[in-house]
């Protein structure tokens, strides 16, 4: 890495912080730089305090930094909260209203400049111009991005924004400060993408055609992405009356033969747990996204957490098999969504994907090539003509691997009977004790196949005696922490879990034997730690836990790990 700088734009909700951030990120991307951006906001539409923070480097960066080089303060709270995050040479750019006289604080007269540009709504573009100038980006790149962003708004708006950009550049040129980042390595093999969009694309690349949901942060963004794509592709996004309806809608649609998805967050997932059981006993494939946020109950609706792992594994009454995955990046989100659809249909069990506000709303630079679209989708649906005798078809025929032929209703002569009561092979209610044993075992025997499908966790320096263990979205924060620790002379490894249930206990037992384990998790009780204890009998581990609604930063992991190792 030749450079690694971070820019934070802070202000009130409604001031357009996210727009500024998104445009900046796009420009850096088109300059050929790697970026990673996080999005921090309150549960309100106007006012309060929020920020957008971009990290930029010539090498991949995939976690936020705790140090800021440029802090743009659109409200006073930004200075108050974030001044301490500045690097030694870092500067603050701040709007007139709360300008204070310190060496590293630079006054930027946004209102004045935007008046000059002819429209006060251009003030965000001016802010962008200033930052880009200070980082050494050419104005041309900004103009390209503006064209893309504002073209729909008409020529007049576009012109004004061009002008605003230039005013910003001019204004900033009088500062001595300039980071002079390189701007000529554009590489069109990369794009910026957040977790939500990656999941949405993963669903499309799985031939998913139906989604039903009830709005809930931070889960709605997955559906928003699907909605946007649905203009080009035969895809229906249905807004249900509640989460109960949403999950049952997709069970109905999947039963009828269309791959289906829903997306919700904790409280909504609560309401889906009964439907989860229905999917399980009727053996109907469904994919459920649980985008985690801090709870209990409404908790912190727009913030992040990794605290639903045990819940999604153990929830709904009685025992039954399911898949649980937790991607650690947009790449993994895209791939795992496809895997979830494939496995859910293959085994006829529900699959749950745990994401969170951090992964869903953060932008990462990825290789476009990662988003490979498969040429074919393997379907496990049986057609009437493939049946020897459709009249004798039994939806729940007992088989060695627990998987029965799945025929669609009204697709031929076979009669398809499905019930949420315990049933016999033909799908009729049965209270018989022997039949019950057979059916429970039929469902459970699938676990033997399912566990074979689980990828073992990704490992880094796994030979070390000390291993950090994490899961899901914290992947790169922990990875970076482990790099820093190793560099500082501490021999440490890292195990990253994405495939969480059925728990690959054999592989894991081997990996962790006789190691010092440090669980790094976004929850209060170390839920993966407990799961590892439950599944492997491993007894002792240390923890680095964070549950204040904010994502992990590599340096704080380092600090805590060092404290543990002292």
């Amino acid at each position, binding site marked *: 890495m030749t450079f690694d700088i971070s820019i934070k734009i802070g202000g009130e909700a409604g001031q357009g912080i996210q727009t500024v951030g998104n445009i900046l990120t796009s420009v850096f991307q088109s300059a050929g730089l790697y970026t990673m951006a996080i999005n921090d906001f309150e549960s309100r539409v106007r006012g309060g305090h929020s920020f957008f923070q971009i990290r930029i480097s010539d090498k991949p960066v995939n976690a936020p930094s705790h140090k800021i080089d440029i802090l743009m303060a659109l409200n006073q709270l930004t200075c108050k909260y974030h001044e301490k995050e500045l690097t030694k040479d870092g500067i603050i750019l701040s709007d007139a209203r709360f300008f204070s006289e310190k060496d590293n604080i630079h006054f930027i007269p946004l209102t004045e400049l935007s008046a000059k540009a002819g429209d006060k709504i251009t003030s965000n573009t001016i802010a962008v111009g200033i930052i880009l100038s200070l980082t050494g980006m050419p104005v041309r790149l900004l103009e390209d991005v503006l064209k893309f962003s504002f073209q729909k708004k008409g020529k007049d708006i576009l012109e004004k924004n061009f002008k605003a950009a230039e005013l910003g550049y001019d204004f900033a040129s009088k500062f001595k400060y300039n980071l002079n980042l390189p701007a000529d390595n554009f590489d*069109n093999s990369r*794009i910026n*993408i957040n977790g939500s*969009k990656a999941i949405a*694309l993963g669903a*499309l*690349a799985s*031939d998913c*055609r*139906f989604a*039903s949901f009830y709005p809930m942060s931070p889960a709605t963004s997955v559906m928003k992405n699907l909605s946007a*794509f*649905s203009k*080009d*592709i*035969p895809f*229906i996004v*249905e807004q*249900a*009356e*509640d989460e*109960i*309806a949403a999950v*049952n*809608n997709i*069970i*109905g*649609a*999947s*039963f*009828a*033969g*269309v791959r*289906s998805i829903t997306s919700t967050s904790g409280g909504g997932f609560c309401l889906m747990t*009964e*439907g989860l059981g*229905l999917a399980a006993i*009727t053996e109907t494939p469904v994919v459920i996204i649980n985008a985690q946020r801090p709870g209990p109950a409404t908790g912190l609706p727009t913030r992040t957490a990794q605290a639903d792992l045990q819940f999604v594994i153990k929830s709904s009454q009685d025992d039954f098999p399911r898949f649980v995955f937790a991607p650690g990046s947009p790449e993994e989100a895209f791939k795992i969504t496809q895997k979830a659809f494939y496995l859910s249909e293959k085994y006829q069990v529900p699959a749950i994907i745990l994401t969170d506000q951090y992964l869903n709303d953060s932008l990462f630079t990825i290789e*476009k090539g990662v*988003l490979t*679209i498969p*040429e*074919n*989708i393997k379907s496990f649906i049986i057609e009437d003509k493939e049946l020897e005798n459709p009249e004798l078809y039994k939806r729940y025929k007992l088989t060695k691997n627990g998987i029965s032929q799945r025929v*669609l*209703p*009204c697709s*031929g*002569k*076979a*009669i*398809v*009977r*499905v*019930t*949420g*009561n315990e049933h016999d092979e033909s*799908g*009729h*209610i049965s209270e018989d004790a022997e039949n019950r044993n057979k059916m429970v075992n039929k469902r459970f025997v699938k676990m033997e196949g399912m566990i074979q499908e689980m990828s073992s966790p990704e490992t880094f320096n796994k030979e070390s005696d000390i291993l950090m263990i994490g899961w899901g979205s914290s992947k790169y924060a922990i990875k970076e922490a482990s790099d820093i620790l190793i560099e500082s002379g501490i021999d440490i490894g890292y195990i990253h879990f994405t495939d969480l249930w059925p728990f690959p206990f054999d592989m894991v037992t081997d990996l962790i034997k006789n190691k010092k384990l440090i669980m790094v998790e976004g929850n209060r009780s170390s839920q993966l730690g407990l799961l590892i204890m439950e599944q492997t009998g491993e007894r002792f581990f240390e923890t680095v836990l964070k549950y204040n609604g904010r994502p992990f930063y590599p340096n704080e992991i380092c600090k805590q790990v060092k404290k543990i190792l002292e």
Partner: protein
Amino acid sequence: MVTVKDYECSFENKWCSGCGNFGILSAMKESLAELEISPDNILLVSGIGQAGKTPHFMKCNMFHSLHGRALTIATGAKLANHNLNIIVNSGDGDCYGEGGNHFINAVRRNIDVTLLVHNNQIYGLTKGQASPTSDQGMKTNLQQNGVISEPFNPVSTALALGCGFVARGFSGNTTQLKKLIKEAVNYRGFSIIDILQPCVSFNKINTYSWYKSKVYDLEDENYSPDSLENAFKISRLWNEKIPTGIIYKEEKLSYTEKIKVLNRHALIENNYNPEKLKEVILNIA
């Protein structure tokens, strides 16, 4: 030719003898046979309760789902494949109690599904608690001092929600019921028949003869079901005389007809299109 016999099924019927559900079951079979819909072309969706068991007692594709959730399953299935003929069998507790919110929204969507509510004014399968339609004063083990809530009026409510096909049937009049079911199935949009169905085991108030003494057929009065205001007025009748027949009917576009992507094909009929997807991915760059 489809006959009632095609709908016979060997699975043991588990209702009490004398139960009003039998009338509904046979009216349903007869209607479907007369409509020339064969068992492999019909999907019955139901919730949990005595009414919810209905699909087990005839030969057909079925999804016997959760208490209260039949309409949500039917909605999903219909959106995935709007060529399906879907009838929902639900109970008064199932549909108006646990499933109240889905009832509201199925009506608002106007999804092309027929809803038959086996309304016995009681929770049958769970052995006799008050249901949303139980009359005030009814005493049960759990309502020791009698029901004190206003009974849910499904007909008035469906009208208020904008339902385009609202009817009331009586399981004791299968001739009329058969006619109503046929009209409801043929209606393009969400159609409701609230069916008065005596529960001989638990409802000792709204018995067969209680209903019998009150019901009358709107057709006999030359009632015309095209005025919402008239329909609302009629919907308030209960204690003296209970109107049956089609109470309100209005043609309008059904939900799936209003969804553009479904104009040409049902969702399930599309093919996976990797080329299109590659384009989408190019566009987001």
